[in-house]
């Protein structure tokens, strides 16, 4: 049961300090996780494959070197698939239910049912909803303060589609890139944030 990483880290620890803890490398942790998880329902093993964003944000504990972050953010920006032509503002009522639902993409759930965005898990949005999380910033009155011009629409759509394009180690999921939310759902969320009629802007 003495693993390779234990030996390697043990040798390193001897050199550095006799009290240093044997610490596995990021690669070794990945191998251990792949061995210790099983696919279940829609949650297949590919979900454990770290991409460059996850790798860099893990290795740097969320604080990547600025130059590398910039480069990877640019790569992420290229993944954003904007709908062709016209307004990105959908129906805020659809957005309200997607924002409220914390369901979707879990191993016990029906993959045919649309996923929620779980927005309220982390963000304050409509003043009428008093149950909201605080992991992300408050988005109350978002459209009222920013307007709803095409540039703002593109920013909000892009941020929901792939938050890592704007802030590499953001805690926000990449809802479009991971096919968690559809184009229409994201447009509806844009409306929920930007439409003057939306409860968010009351």
């Amino acid at each position, binding site marked *: 049961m003495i693993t390779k990483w234990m030996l390697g880290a043990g040798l390193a620890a001897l050199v550095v300090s006799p009290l240093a803890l044997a610490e596995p490398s990021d690669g070794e942790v990945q191998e*251990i996780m792949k061995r*210790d998880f*099983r696919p*279940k329902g829609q*949650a297949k093993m590919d*979900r454990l494959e770290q991409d460059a964003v996850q790798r860099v944000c*893990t290795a740097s504990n969320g604080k990547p070197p600025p130059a590398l972050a910039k480069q990877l953010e640019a790569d992420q920006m290229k993944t954003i698939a904007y709908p062709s032509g016209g307004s990105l503002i959908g129906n805020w009522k659809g957005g309200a239910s997607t924002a409220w639902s914390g369901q979707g993409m879990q191993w016990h759930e029906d993959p045919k049912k649309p996923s929620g965005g779980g927005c309220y898990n982390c963000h304050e949005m409509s003043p009428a909803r008093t149950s909201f999380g605080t992991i992300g910033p408050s988005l109350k009155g978002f459209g009222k303060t920013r307007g709803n011009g095409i540039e703002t629409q593109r920013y909000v759509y892009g941020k929901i589609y792939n938050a890592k394009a704007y802030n590499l*180690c953001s805690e926000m999921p*990449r809802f479009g890139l*991971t096919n968690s939310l559809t184009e229409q759902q994201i447009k509806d969320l844009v409306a929920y944030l930007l439409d003057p009629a939306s409860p968010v802007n009351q």
Partner: protein
Amino acid sequence: MRTTVRAVALGVALAAAPAAAQESQFAQYQKMVAEGSPVELFELVGEELWQKKQGPKNASLEQCDLGLGPGRVKGAHARLPRYFKDVDRVMDVETRLLHCMLTLQGRSREDALKRPFGNADNPSEMEYLSAYVAGQSRGYKMSPGMSHPQEKESYALGKKLFTVRTGLWDFSCASCHGEEGKRIRMSELPVLSKPEAARPLMATWPAYRVSNSTFKTMQWRLNNCFRQMRTPEPVFGSETINALNMYLTVTAKGATYSGPGTKR
């Protein structure tokens, strides 16, 4: 009251009847103890299951060595997870209970793990047993194993796992449990890398969870976090789960165990 409680608990535990009959007995019992602590029920049923002979070897778990020697349950939960020489690995309480089901009772892994996590209508054997074993450590100081190289290795792995970005939605444990004063919806999120936050929590798991209307274990808690992180499912008793449990318990060390608790 206590005698009645025990008698009914015995009935529930020993009923080899189909799930439906068991459910209705359980429902009756729930009514009876509505004003008492539901935790006590789980401890009592767990004790009966601990003593119940079953499996191909028709043996009870009474000779299970939880780290203090065969049959010594008092204070054992508070000393876990720890390294076990007989299996040459670190085990938490549920992993060790599973080991005892396989070795002492001769059950297959498939049989013993058919239903590690139950529900309000039909709690699992593991949940009852965890309640009993944990209850036997009330008042004991939590001191998980920290001296054996594998115990240190387990802690180091758990600490590292805590910050690994993974799953469909890029979360790590620290995404929710890494910053002070944050909430998910209305639930306050403890910063589990901090002893002052880890202690009261780890001192009360396993626990009766009001939102689930049933008793839940630490391995269930970790499993449920990964479900919400949109990963595949962690294997029961795996090194990953044991390492996370080890990391959290070592962070909480020195707390006086006061569970099983009652939680939201």
